């Protein structure tokens, strides 16, 4: 048990180190970071000076080491566009993204669990068909298109919800729903299939044989066990949820990390891109680490071995 946690922590540290390497090498993809960061009209002398100033003349390993040392101290360099440290710029936008993604996750779970359970308990019936239909369409719908259609309907035609920005509850509804749809579809299918499996387990038969009511058997015996795989999948999906937030934030001009990063990418503001990619990927690693440890705690069978 202790060995497992130690090994899992070591893996996480290794992966984060890998994340730092990838974030670092992003600027080397075209061969010369100076050419990316300077405007196209820069003269050879200016490029030369820029290289010397920023240390691009040093061997790559030296540069990476410097990047890593600074990164550990939270220093990812000055944003080329905003003239400030890039990490605080991103940190300032993190709460907005968290608010959006967490709302989306809660929304997805709140819809998927009852839908999946109902589909499993009414297997083959109209509710099941409906739930699976919703799930299949939900998995296939491009979330950015759904977002635009919602804007068209709820904001442009009916004027019920604001089209963009961050403010009260009304602002969160559409972007959160757009991010939630794909996750909701996936979770509905997962809950349905695990519930079907759990309902055929011996302990469920025993519970039924004892004369417990079906509702009690479903909610107290089968459901808690069916929720365990849900935790893992949500953890694994976190990267996709963040990715969804990147696109959806730009549509609703939601002032989060996603919108900021896309602008940085389009502006070639690479210190910001590096910092953002590093922070988001590290967040995914940490979430998955938490999920794995949580799993051990949730499932006593793993705890023992």
């Amino acid at each position: 048990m202790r060995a497992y946690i130690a090994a899992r922590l070591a893996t996480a540290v290794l992966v984060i180190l890998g994340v730092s390497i990838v974030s670092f090498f992003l600027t080397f993809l075209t061969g010369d970071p100076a050419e990316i960061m300077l405007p196209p009209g820069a003269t050879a002398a200016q490029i030369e000076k820029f290289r010397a100033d920023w240390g691009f003349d040093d061997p790559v390993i030296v540069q990476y080491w410097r990047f890593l040392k600074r990164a550990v101290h939270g220093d990812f360099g000055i944003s080329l566009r905003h003239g400030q440290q890039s990490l605080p710029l991103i940190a300032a936008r993190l709460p907005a993204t968290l608010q959006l993604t967490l709302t989306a996750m809660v929304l997805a779970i709140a819809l998927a669990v009852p839908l999946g359970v109902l589909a499993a308990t009414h297997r083959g019936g109209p509710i099941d068909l409906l739930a699976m239909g919703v799930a299949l369409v939900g998995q296939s719908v491009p979330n950015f298109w759904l977002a635009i259609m919602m804007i068209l309907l709820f904001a442009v035609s009916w004027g019920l919800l604001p089209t963009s920005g961050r403010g009260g509850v009304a602002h969160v509804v559409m972007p959160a729903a757009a991010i939630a749809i794909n996750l909701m579809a996936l979770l509905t299918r997962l809950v349905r299939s695990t519930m079907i499996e759990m309902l055929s387990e011996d302990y469920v038969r025993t519970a039924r044989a004892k004369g417990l009511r079906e509702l009690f058997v479903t909610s107290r015996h089968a459901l808690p066990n069916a929720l365990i795989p849900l935790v893992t999948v949500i953890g694994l999906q976190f990267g996709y949820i963040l990715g969804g937030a990147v696109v959806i934030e730009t549509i609703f001009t939601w002032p989060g990390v996603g919108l900021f990063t896309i602008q940085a990418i389009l502006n070639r503001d690479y210190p910001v891109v590096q910092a953002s990619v590093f922070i988001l990927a590290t967040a995914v690693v940490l979430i998955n680490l938490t999920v794995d440890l949580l799993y051990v705690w949730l499932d006593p069978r793993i705890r023992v071995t």
Partner: protein
Amino acid sequence: MIRLARRSPLAGAGALIVGLVIVAALAAPLLATLKPPFWQGDGSLRHPLGTDHLGRDVYSRLIYGAQISLTISVLAAFLGAVVGVVAGLVAGYLGGRVDTIIMRLADLNLAFPLILLALAVVALLGANLKNLVIVMAITTWMIYARVVRGLSLGLREREFVQAARALGAHDARIIARHLLPNVLAPVMVIWTLEVARIILMESALSFLGLGVPPPTPTWGRMLAEGRDYLTVAGWIAVFPGLAILFTVLGINFLGDGLRDLLDPRLRRQT
């Protein structure tokens, strides 16, 4: 196809939809009412889905847009599959340090919000067909690698593999002749579902302005352009989205149906 439909209506419906989209892509010059660049002409031609802000026929652009979506997603899913399957086979069969390195690479790749990574790389390298295919392949290989590794771990211990090894077959031969054929069915299923995912991702990149550049019609950019005219001409944004939804839904139908037919054990993993 009829046999497929009888055994799995879902897969049959999927195959039908996918077939329609492929036909649209291949026969674009015949089906489209206008040729690129789809200008309106003298106004006597019919525009079944209306025209966009530049007066181009939306229907014809949609038909041609299928070419780009399918080309990128099929090629990228194939490239990713080749890399991922080889990595998974090698990792699972050889085990040890090779296994650790390959699987940590997969973990690392999975840690990145893929669309962000794709955006950053495409923005740097330039958005063209080749780069998009490579970038999309980077977002998909590790899924094959993980599944195939798991399968080959089990296959490695099976008698027929042990027998081949006892006969003195090389590792490369065992992997190619004995392991590979046994992992192809699940790989087919993943491949299908990944094509659908890549279509979604490619259209998202294109929507954000980092897809195949204009004037090539892509569904994602058509949507982005339509977004600017939502209040006056909603249809421009509606139809490309429906095209994406229709295609992805068809491919998912096909993938799910195939999974049920080929390998019921995989059913739980979604």
